[in-house]
């Protein structure tokens, strides 16, 4: 009698799950409201369609307030920023202190990243619950860095006088708006890949909700039973 091979298990402690969903919710709010705020004074030659933005019904807001919901969008944005900051600090703080980052997100090397990236691009990269390949590791470091960039550029836009010369990091106030926009775009790209991969491996979603998921035990094949 051979003991069955240990299944691949994915676990997330409660702290990580709360921080993850806090960030997920606040990032969605910040994207939707950010698009409405962007529309009030577009940086580039386009506006986001109103239905994709957060800030309430434009016609109601115009009728009641003479404002197309920009005020509400700003209220959403500056409320959700506190939730994002809280979620981010908890997530990064716990990741550093518990060793989660060191254990699961390191090491990352250009060679192994390239190997995993090519495999992933050919749909030949196997996903093992509880293990992070180099593409995942780079993506998670990347998005954590992007959120930090969004917090910094956001502060430069929110308080350009009180935090001056912070904006000079971003080539001035208007530069900070551009950096904030680019960071948003990259986070949206991350979210599309992230959610797509979760849909492909739904157990990762279960793990992030209830804290634990494991690969199903391999079913014995009929010919092996004999």
């Amino acid at each position: 009698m051979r003991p069955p091979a240990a299944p691949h298990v994915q676990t997330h402690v409660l702290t990580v799950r709360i921080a993850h969903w806090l960030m997920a919710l606040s990032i969605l709010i910040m994207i939707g409201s950010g698009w409405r705020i962007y529309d009030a004074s577009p940086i580039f030659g386009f506006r986001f369609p109103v239905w994709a933005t957060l800030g309430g019904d434009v016609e109601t807001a115009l009728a009641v307030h003479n404002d197309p919901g920009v005020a509400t969008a700003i209220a959403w944005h500056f409320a959700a920023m506190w939730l994002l900051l809280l979620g981010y600090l908890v997530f990064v703080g716990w990741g550093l202190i518990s060793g989660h980052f060191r254990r699961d997100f390191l090491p990352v090397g250009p060679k192994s990243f390239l190997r995993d990236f090519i495999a992933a691009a050919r749909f030949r990269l196997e996903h093992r619950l509880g293990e992070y390949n180099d593409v995942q590791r780079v993506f998670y470091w990347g998005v954590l860095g992007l959120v930090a960039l969004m917090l910094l550029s956001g502060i430069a836009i929110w308080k350009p006088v009180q935090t001056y010369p912070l904006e000079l990091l971003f080539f001035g106030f208007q530069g900070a708006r551009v950096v904030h926009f680019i960071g948003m775009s990259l986070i949206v790209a991350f979210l599309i890949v992230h959610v797509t991969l979760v849909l492909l491996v739904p157990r990762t979603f279960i793990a992030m909700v209830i804290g634990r998921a494991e690969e199903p035990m391999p079913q014995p094949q009929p010919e092996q039973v004999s």
Partner: protein
Amino acid sequence: MTLERRHLLRGGTSLSSLTLLTGCDLSDSNVVQRVLAGFSRWNDRVQAALFSDSRLAPTFPDAMAVRDFRYNAWYGPDRAPDLKPDDYRLMLSGLIADKRPWTVEQLYALPQVSQVTRHVCVEGWSMIGKWTGAPLKTFLERVGADTTAKYVGFECADGYYEGMDMPTALHPQTIMAFYLSDELLPRKYGYPFKIRVPTKLGFKNPKFVTTIYVTNIRPRGFWTDRGYNWFSGI
């Protein structure tokens, strides 16, 4: 603070109202609005704590000041109040010892300073301009205002109204601007003066000011009443 775009937006709202027919809009529910208002009050407190009465807004070389400053109001420049220096009087009320009205001539005789600072609109655009006028602090001291009070409020000839915290009102860069780009403040920009406060968003810079009052009750603001954050410091 301008809102020309808001009128343009009206044309595009039929599409959005169609898409919104599919469900009630979260943002407009009373509970959500109350929660957002709660966060906004929290943000007022954070901003008041962040505000430094000695930190100056960045200033720029004269050459960077825009000559043709952006006009910004919810009405066209032809409908801007046309205040005549002979009739105009600045009225004072509230916690002020000497409430005698001021004429334009008296106001313009106050000691003045110039600043090349950046106007930042809540919508995201910004513009550098040169303003010249009397520090509001100087004026408040001349009229014997109670500067231990919490707020200073403004009423304007175009129906606008605003207010700010006393620390900001006493900030050295908060001025009653009589000149823009070294020229007498043109009618459409708020003659005889606008409050220029570079540590706050553009809509906290009222034009055509006709009344200044000092109070401990937080003054309402035109755009604040329309959902914008009250402190709106930058």
